[in-house]
């Protein structure tokens, strides 16, 4: 398959209803941090962009949202042209300009404070990070607390960024500024909004 075909194929079959379903899953995940909101496969993006992360990008990104790709996604021309064709999102010049960042290899990603944190006046002007993870059970268990969680929730996402718990603590301390994280796993979507507090469960 040539690059042009790869860029065009694999988008939403039914853009209106697929986008609504994907958004609703992200909304419910953001409202209930730590829960897995299942998503069927709606998009078939070129590798290494995952189906879940690709679908989230199609649902939320457009020409108003500068998009930053991590080096793994930057490398193949097909990912850029697929996102460009289906969303029209312009590439962000720097991570700090990005409304959304797509990250295929979170374990190697730059630190969270390199992205836009929003301002004290406009904390909404921050980057939403979409992290591809292979599962939510094989990594370090994280005990979650905060708005949207009745008591506590636990997830153990694989391949999380280095020193994630420490970085997240700093993200919490910047509140109301800070980044929000969307974890895109093969089964669906899970969110960590900036209000979620993490406790490690290691003995």
């Amino acid at each position: 398959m040539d690059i042009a075909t790869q860029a065009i194929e694999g988008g939403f079959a039914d853009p209106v209803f697929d986008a609504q379903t994907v958004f609703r899953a992200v909304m419910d995940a953001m409202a209930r941090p730590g829960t897995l909101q299942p998503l069927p496969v709606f998009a078939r993006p070129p590798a290494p962009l995952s189906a879940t992360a690709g679908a989230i990008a199609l649902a939320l990104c457009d020409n108003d949202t500068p998009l930053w790709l991590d080096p793994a996604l930057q490398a193949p021309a097909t990912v850029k042209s697929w996102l460009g064709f289906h969303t029209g999102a312009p590439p962000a010049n720097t991570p700090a300009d990005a409304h959304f960042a797509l990250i295929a290899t979170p374990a190697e990603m730059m630190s969270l404070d390199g992205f836009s944190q929003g301002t004290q006046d406009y904390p909404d002007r921050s980057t939403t990070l979409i992290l591809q993870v292979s599962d939510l059970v094989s990594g370090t268990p994280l005990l979650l607390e905060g708005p949207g969680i009745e008591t506590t929730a636990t997830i153990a996402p694989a391949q999380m960024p280095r020193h994630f718990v420490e970085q997240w603590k700093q993200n919490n301390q910047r509140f109301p500024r800070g980044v929000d994280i969307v974890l895109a796993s093969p089964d669906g979507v899970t969110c960590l909004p900036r209000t979620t507090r993490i406790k490690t469960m290691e003995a």
Partner: protein
Amino acid sequence: MTDIATYNFAYLDEQTKRMIRRAILKGIAIPGYQVPFASREMPMPYGWGTGGVQVTASIIGPEDVLKVIDQGADDTTNAVSIRAFFKKVANVAVTTETAKATIIQTRHRIPEHPLTSGQVLVYQVPIPEPLRFLEPRETETRKMHALEEYGLMHVKLYEDIARHGRIATTYAYPVKVEGRYVMDPSPTPKFDNPKMHRSPALQLFGAGREKRIYALPPFTDVVSLDFEDHPFEVQTFDQPCALCAAENVYLDEVILDDHGGHMFVCSDTDHCEKRREQGHRGHLAPETPLALEKTEPAQ
């Protein structure tokens, strides 16, 4: 179906929905913070629920069941029109039953029936800025929120106590969210404030004319502002509902004759009807039960 063909699903174009959806996600991530959004002109006047309608249109899907209330009632003009609007442009099922709805759009009330996990309550908000009547300038109020500088609000409430012996705010009573942002709950009576605290439902607030969206995720701390020696209190009524005998609900005073004769009845019509179906009867209940509007499936 010909009606549907003339509009995109749920009326709004997809780019507008995406913009609103992004604002909703930020609102949920920063509870109580008012996210500016590029509100669109809707086929209804500003001030009539354009914010709520845009939020509902951006989240609703074909599987949703929608309930719309104004003043707690399903049969008030604004509620009837908005429900008809979504039946037409989204072809969704509508209901008057709180428990059956997945999305409830409201003006001025929170239903009496406890909301559950998975439900979304969408508020129509006229003035989203809780500090607006103390400081009309957006440039100033934005600074106050940024610096968490809410002294002005406490001064206002304290002046009320000094002058009237009590806090003289009865609706749109300000709340503090998760100990950070002071938020306007929209002009619901303060009676409904405690229902917002740690509600299992997601609460979304849309202000179309003022171009703001804000949110309360489920299980979020929502505390009505007060003072230690003047704790927050909700309205109480001396008598039960005249139709269904409910107590501890919000009542409306209905004038019965030209001489000021009146009765107090539930403002939440669904709650009142449900209770009467179950056989509860107030002292002025009619002999035969009312014909009730039931869930209407999508066509």
